[in-house]
């Protein structure tokens, strides 16, 4: 008897199923078919993969989380002083961003800390003061707040207050940020603006995997402390063909990803993809064409790219999730 095909309704980005996963696999094992039907249940966006540069050599399919993992792997390979630490990073992290790194590079280089964000940030600063490289993780950007004192009063001011003798240049702080299906109040925060207005640190947010890898490697190698927020909703849903080589994308440079003539739209991270859909809608419904500029680095931001628009277009829309 032929098995009935199973239709799985996908709301948002994760497939939801009335059967358990076991039931799903049993269905597949019997030779049945599983069809995943996407149905928008709320406002969302479509991720459009970025094309790798023409000069890129070997490429490999990676989602944003895997691209971040790849960047950290390259950092650990090329910088023998680099260490990665935070809560639960040793087994791979709650999102898998540090998967396999402890196995490959050793527990002294990729290790867990107690649950204490100000301790993680402070220790990261200390590693940097000693001349080594620290890539620290805040489990969620929502929990970066206890580390606020160390970031604002210490990391950002270290070079300035010591007359350029001590620095926390080797410090990079990573955190998953932004909204997700089920995160609610305390797993969806976008606190980047708290740090955007602080001199002495750099604030960077990528829009996809190719961007994430290059920007994170730049952050890790930058001669200033950097904060790198990774839009968690893009961890699995954003997939590019990412160059496997060691490459960096410069900080402080925005990128215009779409040209238009009526409106300039500026955003970063997930909102870029929302704006892409908005631009498409605007073009179809109202005949309005839009520039879309991805800031990438929020601090210091690239005013030249944003301001360098056609003079007859004075309207600008900035979109950020809060």
């Amino acid at each position, binding site marked *: 008897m032929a098995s009935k095909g199973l239709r799985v309704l996908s709301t948002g980005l994760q497939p939801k199923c009335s059967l358990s996963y076991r039931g799903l696999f049993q269905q597949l094992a019997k030779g049945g078919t599983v069809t995943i039907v996407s149905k928008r249940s709320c406002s969302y966006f479509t991720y459009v993969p970025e094309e790798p540069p023409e000069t890129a050599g070997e490429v490999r399919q990676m989602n944003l989380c895997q691209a971040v993992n790849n960047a950290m792997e390259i950092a650990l390979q090329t910088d023998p002083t680099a260490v990665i630490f935070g809560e639960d990073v040793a087994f791979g992290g709650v999102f898998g961003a540090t998967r396999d790194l402890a196995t490959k590079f050793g527990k002294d280089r990729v290790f867990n800390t107690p649950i204490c964000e100000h301790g993680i940030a*402070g220790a990261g*600063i200390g590693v940097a003061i000693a001349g080594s490289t620290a890539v620290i993780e805040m489990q969620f950007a929502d929990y970066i707040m206890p580390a606020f004192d160390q970031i604002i009063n210490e990391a950002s001011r270290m070079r300035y207050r010591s007359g350029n003798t001590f620095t926390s240049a080797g410090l990079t702080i990573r955190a998953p940020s932004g909204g997700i299906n089920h995160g609610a109040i305390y797993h969806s925060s976008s606190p980047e603006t708290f740090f955007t207005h602080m001199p002495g640190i750099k604030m960077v947010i990528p829009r996809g995997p190719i961007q994430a890898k290059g920007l994170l490697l730049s952050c890790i190698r930058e001669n200033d402390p950097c904060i790198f927020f990774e839009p968690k909703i893009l961890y699995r849903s954003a997939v590019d063909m990412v160059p496997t080589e060691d490459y960096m994308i410069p900080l402080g440079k925005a990128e215009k990803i779409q040209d238009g003539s009526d409106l300039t739209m500026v955003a970063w991270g997930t909102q870029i993809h929302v704006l892409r859909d908005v631009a498409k809608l605007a073009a179809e419904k109202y005949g309005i064409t839009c520039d879309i500029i991805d800031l990438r680095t929020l601090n210091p931001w690239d005013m030249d790219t944003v301001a360098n628009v056609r003079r007859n277009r004075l309207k600008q829309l900035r979109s950020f999730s809060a």
Partner: protein
Amino acid sequence: MATSRRVWSFSRRLKLHFSSLKPIYAAAPCVPVRFQGSSQQSGDHVITDAFKPPKEAFTLEDRPHFPGSSSKWTEKLCFVEPTRYDGIPVYRVMDRDGQIMDSTQDPNFNEETVVKMYHTMTLLNTMDRVLYDSQRQGRISFYMTNYGEEGTHIGSAAALDDKDLVFGQYRETGILMWRGFPIQQFMNQCYGNNAGGDKGRQMPVHYGCTERCFVTISSPLATQMPQAVGSAYAYKRAGNGQVVITYFGDGASSEGDAHAAFNFAATLDCPIIFFCRNNGYAISTPTAEQYRGDGIACRGPGYGMSAIRVDGNDVFAVYNVTKAAREIAFKENRPVLIEAMTYRIGHHSTSDDSSAYRSVDEVRYWDKHDHPIGRLRKYMFRKGLWDDDKEQAWMKKSKQTILTAFADAEKRKKSSPVECFRDVYKEMPWHIERQMQETKEHLAKYRDQYPLDKFDSWDD
């Protein structure tokens, strides 16, 4: 260590006291179980056993097997009461008259070392007096003295290697002085002039020096502690033969960063010495309002660290414990906590008048009867290493050294105003460059409104 417990009937007590909910447990004569871990005693150093949990291998014996604790069962409901055990004793070498109590603890310094210790402590004291008065005269903006705590600085600094990294709080000037930081540089930083290492960006006493491995002081309390732990971890990986020491006060130990640092240092096996200067006050807050437990040393075992309490006014004792702590930290890659008991004879700073919250008699007692400089002087007199003539000559010379540096620092100009914009990042970004340019134009246009003759000029 055997503990004695009175056997009492739990169910009977429960029936009697259930409704009243009286704190019956406080009366239970329980004392905390002291875990006998591996002994730390050796002929080389003189610290006591640490509170370490037993490390027996997993057996089928009827013991609890929780991942969070290796211990044993008890059927006696008994709280570990903080008031039912003696405080950690205070280690000393000399009594208040400078007499060695136990000759086996005498570090047996040669004359040169003892004299250097005395010279440094008194030079620091003289510099404090001059700079405190200069603030009162409006010549510098702010100052913090080290009166009464000179022993903690010099004793610990002498026990360290000069390349050990120091993270201070703000009252550790003596460490820098021991390491040869020029008096001129202290003065320059306090004056905020163009030769001060921080280019006038920080308040006075916020010294720093890469050459002498002294991380620049910052004002927020205890932030240096987890940073010191991170540096210690990096030093361990680098295998550079150095340890890290971080100083903090009794007040700063209440900060969350102190807890973070203790816990991280222990769990990450860091070669770090935590040195607490317990001087009795955090500005106006006495220790009775700062903590309820037995000071700071008692927290060490709670985090899995060795700890010791020492007489901070006994420079030899401070030396001995720091030396022993350094050996443990370096050889065994684990943190050690030292609590140096002392007294803050001066005000918190020039912005404070401590007569508002403590009696002048109390201060006078410590100044006259239990002062680290006085104690060392008595020792030196007793040993024939010092006398009144040498004292007079040295006081004259040290004051001259201070005043010469002072006069030079006062003459210097301040750094150029455009230094405000430099060193924020390694490379100046466009928006700070623009602000700097706007400031230059503003100053050029309105130069008569600003005392620019007191500042270095700048390139346009």
